[in-house]
């Protein structure tokens, strides 16, 4: 187990170097001019301003030189300075990471709970109407474009019926709590602001449902398959023979074992959640990493784009690592094998 973890950690710097190199090479083919986002289009005719900006941002240096400086800084934990916000990229990302994490964690809970519930229904009533409906519901989540679903959800629940609030993390008129963790749910509670907590929770409902539904399909498919596998085993027959009720067999006897193989898709769903959160954050004006990435990409803010990509890759690696660790912890056979 430890070997796997160490090997993965050792490979990471090379992966990072690879992506930095690739992004750098790609940026050389670009048609857009990053100076537009640094000094604005109006100043482009002003040779003095352009020269000053180029010198200030290192754009007058050669590509290999810029590459070497970037890699050197990266090795020291410096992702450079954003062209657009003029702040260190790492600071920008640190500010925005909690919002994304809060959303992704809530969506993961929705996706896992919903997916497992659907899978149990599917497996228990295999090949019946209930099974087909449950599978269709799960599949729809992965086929509906999240950005469209977000729009429709906002329109139906926020505009038409006013059941839930609109975009953002808090009501516009509300005073944001002092930032301690960056998680709105935690910060409002720490500030003793119960109304704020409820407001934050209500703002989380739509985006996490939309994002959660998009990963429900993967979870449900995987859990259903392993549930069917487990339900065919002798100990289940034994439990049934001893008179355990249907629900008890499903939840008490089968589910725990069925979830172990399903753990392997945790890392995989992370990729989907990131994809989804980029789009969901855009729709719900969520001030997280996803919307930051979109703004950066639109304005050719290379340090920011590269920074987000690197952080995303790191996150992906951590998710895969956690998956391996969780898998080993849950299945004793794996622990001994590695």
């Amino acid at each position, binding site marked *: 187990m430890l070997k796997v973890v160490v090997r993965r950690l050792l490979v990471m710097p090379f992966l990072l170097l690879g992506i930095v190199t*690739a992004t750098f090479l*790609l940026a050389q083919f670009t048609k857009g001019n990053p100076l537009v986002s640094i000094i604005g289009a109006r100043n482009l005719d002003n040779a003095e301003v352009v020269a000053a900006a180029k010198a200030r941002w290192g754009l007058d240096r050669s590509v290999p030189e810029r590459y070497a400086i970037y890699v050197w800084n990266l090795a020291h934990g410096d992702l450079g300075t954003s062209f657009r916000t003029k702040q260190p990229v790492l600071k920008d990302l640190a500010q925005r990471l909690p919002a994304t994490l809060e959303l992704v964690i809530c969506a993961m809970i929705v996706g896992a709970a919903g997916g497992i519930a659907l899978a149990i229904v599917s497996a228990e009533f295999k*090949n019946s109407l209930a099974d087909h409906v449950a599978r269709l519901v799960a599949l729809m989540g*992965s*086929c509906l*474009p999240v950005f*469209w679903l977000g729009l*429709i959800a906002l329109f139906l629940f926020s505009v038409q019926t006013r059941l839930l609030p609109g975009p953002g993390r808090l009501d516009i008129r509300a005073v944001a709590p002092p930032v301690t963790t960056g998680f709105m749910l935690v910060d409002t509670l720490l500030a003793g602001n119960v109304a704020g907590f409820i407001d934050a929770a209500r703002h989380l409902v739509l985006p996490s449902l939309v994002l959660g539904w998009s990963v429900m399909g993967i979870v449900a498919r995987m859990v259903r*398959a392993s549930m069917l596998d487990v339900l065919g085993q002798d100990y289940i027959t034994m439990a049934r023979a001893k008179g355990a009720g249907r629900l008890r067999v499903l939840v008490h006897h089968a589910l725990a074992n069925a979830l172990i193989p399903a753990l392997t898709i945790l890392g995989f769903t992370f990729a989907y959640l990131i994809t989804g959160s980029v789009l969901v954050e855009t729709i719900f004006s969520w001030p997280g990493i996803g919307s930051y990435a979109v703004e950066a990409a639109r304005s050719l803010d290379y340090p920011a784009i590269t920074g987000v990509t690197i952080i995303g890759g790191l996150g*992906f690696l951590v998710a895969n690592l956690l998956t391996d660790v969780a898998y080993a912890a849950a299945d004793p056979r794996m622990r001994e094998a590695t």
Partner: protein
Amino acid sequence: MLMGPTTHRDVRPRPRLAGAIGGFFARLGWRQVPVMFAAVVLVALVLVALTIPLWTPYDPIGLAGRRLQPPSAAHWLGTDALGRDVLVRTLFGARYSLPIAAVVLVVAVGIGVTLGALAGFLGGIVDNVLMRLADITLAFPPVLLAMAIAASLGPGLVNTALALIIVWWPIYARLMRAQVLNVKKLDHVDAAIVGGVTPARLLTHHIMPLCWSPIFVNMTMDVGQVILLAAGLSFIGLGAQPPTPEWGQMIAEGASNFYCWWIALGPGMAIFLVSLSSNFLGDGLRDVADPRTRQGG
């Protein structure tokens, strides 16, 4: 019987592809509703995409009526902020999304299959270099990589396609490599080597024909994924640019006219239908290609 150098043809397995396609249609009963549904949707969309310029009542990028009209008899899905017919634009959208998915998958599969087959067949340093390249690409969430690439290349449909190809080829390289490694162990390969075939012929005529079925299943499933991601990139402004009637781009227009829900309805449903169909079709294909997964396992 004389064993001559030409008898290696006799031990060559029959390509399973033709048999798989034949069996696919043979098993396609009326109970296979999802597959039928998918086939109807996709065939209809392809026909529409090919023929729509001949029978369209309105110009997809020209004025068709008053601005921001809700659905009516004249405009079934209403009109957008520039008075263009949403239904006509949605149907024209198939002329962008379907070819993009096709081009991305054909090129990505072409590159992936070639490199994956070489990696699996040759092994050693070629395998190492190619697979580390694939690892680097797969180590990043696809959307971020595609965004970084699309942003670097500049917005546009061609660049979106290019970004998606870069994101997608390693999946097929890995898949093909694993297949080749499996097939390489089979007896008929040894027989062919004894029969004296050249390595190139061994790979293309004796190994690769047996490797295709998971590739095709994956390709079918990925049609929906490619269309979703391409539309997502257009939605955030990195793909198709206005006034192109591309689905993601149209949903972005719908988002900026938030209260007119009908603008985004057509393209959203279109993406959903294509994506759902590609999943249904992929599931059906997999059941035929691998009987073990039948019974919805």
